[in-house]
């Protein structure tokens, strides 16, 4: 029996050596192990799209039914550039000029449908589409503001003028309910805010313009341009 006692001692010693030998081996594996890193960077953290009248929006989108994985994404999806300048106009008959009866205006815009969801939103030719979106990262409550810039008056070739304030608009859209993001207003200054778009929202309205017809200008064709600008923080 005694002659066998060293055996378990040796076995324990051997086990201890094995354990001690295992430790640096494990550390060697751990020190060689890494974790790879991918640094996420928002490539287009801020995007605004805005159109008054006709616009262009191209590409395809991962819409409501999009699920992961995997994710299909159109690399070409993007708002387009459309240089068209649409007109809103009215022709007032000679016997009605200045009689105070408001005259409905019409537009040459062909934008009846919404790029938001494709539905028929504005009624042509009486309504002018105005809308867009504001995309940005973060979870703030910022808004993109839309400003109209214009001259004080419309003018004819002879230099006669009609105050821009003679023109006003109402706001609505097929199927709309509640407040419009681009509400009713009138051209009461040379730079006026006409609406806003909340962060990560699409906002749109249809404007119906009206000429007040309370002044008696010289006969002629009066024109003026309104430029709409969207600005995001």
């Amino acid at each position, binding site marked *: 029996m005694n002659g066998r006692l060293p055996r378990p001692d040796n076995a324990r010693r051997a086990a201890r050596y094995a354990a001690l030998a295992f430790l640096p081996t494990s550390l060697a594996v*751990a020190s060689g192990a*890494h974790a*790879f890193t991918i640094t996420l*960077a928002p490539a287009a953290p801020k995007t605004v799209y805005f159109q008054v009248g006709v616009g262009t929006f191209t590409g395809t989108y991962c819409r409501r039914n999009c699920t992961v*994985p995997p*994710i299909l*994404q159109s690399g070409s999806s993007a708002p387009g550039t459309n240089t068209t300048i649409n007109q809103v106009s009215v022709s007032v008959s000679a016997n009605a000029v200045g009689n105070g009866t408001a005259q409905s205006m019409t537009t040459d815009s062909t934008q009846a449908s919404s790029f*938001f969801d494709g539905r028929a939103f504005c009624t042509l030719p009486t309504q002018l589409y105005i809308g867009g979106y504001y995309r940005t990262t973060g979870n703030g409550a910022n808004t993109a503001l839309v400003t109209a810039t214009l001259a004080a008056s419309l003018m004819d070739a002879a230099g006669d003028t009609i105050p821009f304030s003679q023109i006003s608009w109402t706001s609505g859209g097929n199927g709309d309910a509640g407040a419009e993001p681009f509400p009713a207003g009138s051209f009461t200054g040379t730079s006026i805010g006409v609406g806003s778009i909340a962060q*990560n929202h699409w906002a749109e309205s249809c404007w119906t313009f009206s000429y007040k017809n309370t002044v008696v200008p010289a006969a002629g064709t009066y024109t003026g341009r309104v430029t709409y600008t969207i600005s995001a923080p």
Partner: protein
Amino acid sequence: MRPPSVSPFCIIWLAAAAAHAGTVVDDSGTLPYNAGLAMRWEQLEPDGSGNHRMVGTLQLRVRLNVAPWQRHNGHVYLVLPAQQPGDISAAWTTQGRLLPGHVVAGSRALVYAGLITTPFIEDVVQLTITVDGRRMLSTYPVNFRFEMDEN
């Protein structure tokens, strides 16, 4: 001087902890190892559906040093620890050596199960990362690792 008597206990305890969490696999042969990834809106136009996800895809040549487990059965997992900016998920496809899958932050997904027959496991992985754009306030390094659970 005698070594502290608690050492064997520590070794056993560490071994137990490692077995529970999985042993980190040496993936230093993976390329690119520190990659940048441009994140884009999954849906460029906000449409009211509440989709504010941003996505980015890159290709990785994964190379795992599994030599310490050669001739053993094991399970290899891709781990995506919980980290900033939060609400991260990753989906990937492979060329067959590893399993395709999907993982969300704070969890892991199986990418290999079976006998380790070679010192290295290699595959080309198409990795797509998704994150909530509302949390993207700056750039974020996101760490992944591979873990081995030996049978």
